[in-house]
């Protein structure tokens, strides 16, 4: 009986302020969509980081005048290094084939590059991909390359010159000694490239997109919160006679507040369902649709993850609106 009373009150209340209700639902939906999207982005980027960082390689580009003996020596050195898991040699021809494949959409660029202009390289997979920076530094030092001169690496100056060298730099030096074996510089290395550095740049861009999405969703969330507070006050004002009588005859605060709070929660749940549908649409039309080419770069977004968003945003939306509603009403009813 009481449940029926409360439910009737909820729907009558929602219908009475139908424009406000719609505004509340839309704001909720938009802010929860943003929240869900940025949450998924966050999880997705985490996955991508794991996936990519696990595959980080150090490319050792060789000079064009390297002799077969030097190449063999270098290969042995790299393979015997305790930090190295695998060494893969890419010839000039292989490099050219890969280049053609990568830039097949840009035939002019491919034409301008001859099969001879790309350097051969060793692709070194490390046992611990996190050590790639240290490995690169050590190798460069062993090869007698001036690390400070390489543009893509500002962090690693030569350890002896830099008293604040990081601990990882220290382990790197140890690795270098084992890699080099003796003090004679390794010949034939032109450049050492640490893929992790490139990835870090990409991920820092993604990270700022992430924080922007999060900031927008928080701002929208605050707007939704204020709208809930306002809507509930309007609803409470339109029912002030009932509220006064209820207080007079000793209705509990719970009984007075429940219909208003449930109104807000109902709107929030409806908003979160809309937000969920928007996320589903986003997956179908964006991730699986127009952006599906990016699936080679992005790890694919699973349905499980999209489904996971429904309880999360429903919970967040419901909690925010019920707490806001409760607090607003407490202040309002006390008057």
């Amino acid at each position, binding site marked *: 009986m009481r449940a029926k009373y409360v439910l009737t009150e909820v729907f009558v209340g929602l219908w009475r302020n139908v424009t406000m209700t719609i505004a509340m639902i839309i704001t909720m939906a938009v802010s929860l969509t943003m929240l869900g999207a940025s949450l998924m982005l966050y999880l997705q980027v985490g996955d991508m980081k794991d996936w990519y960082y696990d595959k980080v390689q150090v490319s050792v580009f060789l000079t064009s005048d390297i002799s077969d003996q030097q190449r063999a020596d270098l290969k042995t050195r790299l393979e015997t290094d305790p930090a190295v898991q695998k060494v893969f040699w890419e010839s000039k021809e292989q490099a050219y084939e890969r280049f053609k494949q990568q830039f097949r959409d840009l035939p002019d660029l491919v034409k301008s590059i001859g099969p001879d202009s790309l350097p051969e390289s060793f692709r070194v997979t490390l046992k611990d991909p996190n050590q790639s920076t240290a490995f690169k530094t050590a190798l460069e030092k062993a090869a007698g390359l001036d690390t400070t001169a390489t543009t893509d690496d500002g962090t690693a100056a030569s350890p002896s010159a830099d008293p604040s060298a990081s601990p990882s730099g220290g382990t790197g030096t140890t690795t270098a000694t084992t890699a080099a074996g003796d003090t004679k510089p390794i010949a034939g290395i032109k450049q050492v490239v640490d893929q992790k550095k490139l990835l870090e740049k990409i991920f820092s861009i993604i990270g700022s997109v992430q924080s922007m999405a999060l900031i927008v969703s928080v701002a929208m969330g605050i707007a939704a919160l204020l709208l809930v507070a306002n809507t509930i006050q309007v609803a409470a004002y339109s029912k002030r006679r009932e509220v006064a009588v209820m207080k007079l005859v000793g209705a*509990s605060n719970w009984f007075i507040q429940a219909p208003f709070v449930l109104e807000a929660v109902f709107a929030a749940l409806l908003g979160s369902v809309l937000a969920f549908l928007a996320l589903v649409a986003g997956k179908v039309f964006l991730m699986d649709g127009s952006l599906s080419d990016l699936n080679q770069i992005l790890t694919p977004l699973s349905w499980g993850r999209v489904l996971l968003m429904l309880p999360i945003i429903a919970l967040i939306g419901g909690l925010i609106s019920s707490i806001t509603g409760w607090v607003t009403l407490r202040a309002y009813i006390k008057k």
Partner: protein
Amino acid sequence: MIRLEHVTKTYPKASRPSLDDVSVSIEKGEFVFFIGPSGSGKSSIIKLLLHEMAPNRGKVVVNNKDVTSIRGWSISKFRRTIGCVFQDFRLLPNRTAYENVAFALEVIGKSKAVARRVVPEVLELVGLGGKEHRYPHELSGGEQQRVAVARAFVNRPLILLADEPTGNLDPDTSIEIMRLLDRINRTGTTVVMVTHDSNIVNQMRRRVIEIEGGRIVRDQARGVYG
């Protein structure tokens, strides 16, 4: 039944207290008038008894309970033991007489079956038999006040507070309402009525407590308006 002990109430920003060290004791089953000019502090007493506000100093005891110490959930339970009638009736305009009275039962969790049994009874008691399904705007002022009395009495409260219940009514209707309150009083309910209607006070010849400037200046059994 009701005891005020050295109660002082000063509203924020007011220069002088609206109740100044007031002590009074009302026994079970009494019928008491609080009289005095506007702003003398008599309505503050009703608000204190209902726990709508707390005194700055002193103690308010109702039904052997220290009202000032009641918190939260208990306030609503406490209010169920007190019926209340006001000058402006405070009925819900979109509900019939029956529904207005039943609403009081509904919001404290009584079932519809209880309402079906009790509400017609109490409406009969206040003399509204046959008018259960009229809306407030279809009833006269006196009849509306009867609905309000029925609503206040339907929970069989121990105390009935009436804040100028005849303030909006003509003298004849006022007397009818007073007869009704008298009948309720005879069932054992303590009635506390705030008024400045001298005719009524003089006719009823009940205990009269006169307040002026926040202080009790007269407390007389079987008193007159004076």
